[in-house]
């Protein structure tokens, strides 16, 4: 069968091409695998840019950027199994399921691989440490600071949250209230709930502007609420009077920044996150640092991370986006 022969040759050639690219990797490099929830997601592509930046800074690091095509735990397990087989030095994973990955990650640790999680964590028994992009405390401080920065003479501020039972938002608002004594001229007049629904958030924002005609800022610590509030301010012709701020996604907030309805907002920076977790993975894999409660692990230009009792750490306060950098990030995530 000559045709079979040709196909055989074709397959072999294909395998040879794949093989030669693999053989180019240096053996003495520290190989850090960045396992993401799924490939083709702008947020994780940006994290990979940060990881590559860290690798360049460190010199002898090879980044393996990988992940499944769909955001499934099974897909990530297949990827992790093949990384274990390759005996990489470290696996840094943003998990699709905090529990399902534990058995394979435990196996990785048994075989001497450094395992850390970032962004979306793994249960404590399946990793050495977890790097959260930020913490409740840092987010709470940031959202009021964003509003205060544009109110040098003080003013009235309202909060547009998600639901009244949202654990995250409630924790952030509580942290915000605990630092209000640093802003004596700023008064938080009311907290309303848009239930993370675009239309309800919009109506609640409208209601706030009617109830408090001299309102100066709306803080929405939710990506749905902040977009709806910015729209409501624009529609009420109050751009310049009411500043909308809080937590949002650059891609969704680019319009509000352009129109001036929002002067600035915050969210974690995926580039910094990828950079920081690569630095941590490197330090743990080369035994420069150890992941134990209370330990301090260096993150290069991002400072250092201090682990709490659950060996978790927060990277930094959320990154502020305004007209100076929105164009760079609006296509990223």
């Amino acid at each position, binding site marked *: *069968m000559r*045709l079979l022969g040709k*196909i055989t040759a074709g397959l072999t050639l294909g395998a040879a091409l794949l093989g030669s690219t693999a053989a180019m990797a240096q053996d003495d490099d520290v190989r850090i695998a960045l396992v993401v929830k799924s490939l083709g997601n702008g947020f994780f592509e940006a994290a990979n840019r940060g990881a590559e930046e860290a690798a360049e800074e460190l010199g002898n690091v090879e980044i393996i950027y990988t*992940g499944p095509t*769909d955001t499934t*735990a099974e897909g990530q397990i297949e990827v992790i*199994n093949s990384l274990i087989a*390759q005996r990489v030095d470290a696996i840094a994973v943003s998990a699709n399921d905090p529990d*399902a990955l534990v*058995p394979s990650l435990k196996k990785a640790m048994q075989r001497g691989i450094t395992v850390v999680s970032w962004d979306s964590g793994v249960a404590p028994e399946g990793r050495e440490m977890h790097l959260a992009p930020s913490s409740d405390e840092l987010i709470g401080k940031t959202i009021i600071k964003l509003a205060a920065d544009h109110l040098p003479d003080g003013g009235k501020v309202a909060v547009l949250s998600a639901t009244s039972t949202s654990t995250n938002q409630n924790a952030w608002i509580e942290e915000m209230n605990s630092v209000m004594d640093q802003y004596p001229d700023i008064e938080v007049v009311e907290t309303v709930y848009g239930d993370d629904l675009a239309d309800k958030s919009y109506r609640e924002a409208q209601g706030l502007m009617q109830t408090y005609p001299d309102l100066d800022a709306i803080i929405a610590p939710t990506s749905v609420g902040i977009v709806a509030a910015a729209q409501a301010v624009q529609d009420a012709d109050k751009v310049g009077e009411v500043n909308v701020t809080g937590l949002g996604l650059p891609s969704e907030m680019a319009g509000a920044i352009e129109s001036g309805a929002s002067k600035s907002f915050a969210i974690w920076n995926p580039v910094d996150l990828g950079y920081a977790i690569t630095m941590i993975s490197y330090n743990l894999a080369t035994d420069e640092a150890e992941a134990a409660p209370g330990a301090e692990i260096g993150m290069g230009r991002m400072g250092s991370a201090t682990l709490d009792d659950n060996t978790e750490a927060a990277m930094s306060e959320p990154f502020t986006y305004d007209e100076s950098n929105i164009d760079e990030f609006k296509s990223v995530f």
Partner: protein
Amino acid sequence: MSLADGTRPRHVPDHLTSRGQRVIRSWETLLVGVAVLIFLANTWASPYFLDPWNLSDATFNFTEKAMIGFAMALLIISGEIDLSVAGIIALASTAMGYALQFGVGTPGLVLIGISVGVACGAFNGVLVTRLGLPSIVVTIGTMSLFRGIAYIVLGDQAYNGYPSSFAFLGQGYVFWVITFELVVFLVLAVIYGIVLHATNFGRQIYVIGNNPTAALFSGVRVQRIKMILFLLTGLMSGIAAVCLTARLGSTRPSIAYAWELEIVTMVVLGGVSILGGAGSILGVVLAALVMGMVTFGLGLLNVPGIVMSIFIGGLLIGVIALPRLITLIRKGQI
């Protein structure tokens, strides 16, 4: 030899079966060839491939899918298809997770997972055989229905905390690197091989797939056999759900997402005719090995998942187009 008017006689084959048998035989030979080739290519391309533990890990890439693949092969040979298998896994896994909340132990969980699988298969089977609906439409519907129920129950939550005796079913080793799942896979392969190739039931499946009307007139209970095949597919989906849930140790509604296409790919790559009437269990086993080795081998080279899908798709089209090309070349048309 020419006739009196100068034309040559039309070639009439003297026996009908031998060519078909030859194609089937060469198909499996071809798959063995491809498997060996991929094995050698992997061994050569990555120093990590030839390691018993790594190969053992790699079997998880196909064992659960292949279990369903066996029942799917029978169903496709009979001229039907079930696209709801991944949905059944999601629903069966959700049911097990729900039962876990009430403290049900490992035997109970296994029983519930398998029962839900069989019930889902029965639902498909009744719609197809009693109401006479086309199986592709019915199971596209139930694919969303079964997974939809799992999403309603769980939302963005997950069930976890399965007992360690349950985890053995998905993570346990029977002997050295031989996993429990691999043993289940091998035992099922033998059982399905015997059922399809050495029983009347198996012959009847081929007859139905080749000509359901003729089968009916020959006294084959067509609807009954199809019903049994849907029940078997449900049963296998239930067993796969038990293994997968035990391996993951948690249930999310996205579990086994898009597996139906990989399973159908595996079956078709194994030489089962998508039009029904032809195929073998050995082919499915070989296809499972080929797909498992390709995904693992490419994984070792850190090839992104989407490129793997392209590779598998290319492999499928290549292997399927090959016999057709050979036929055309023999006839001198290319």
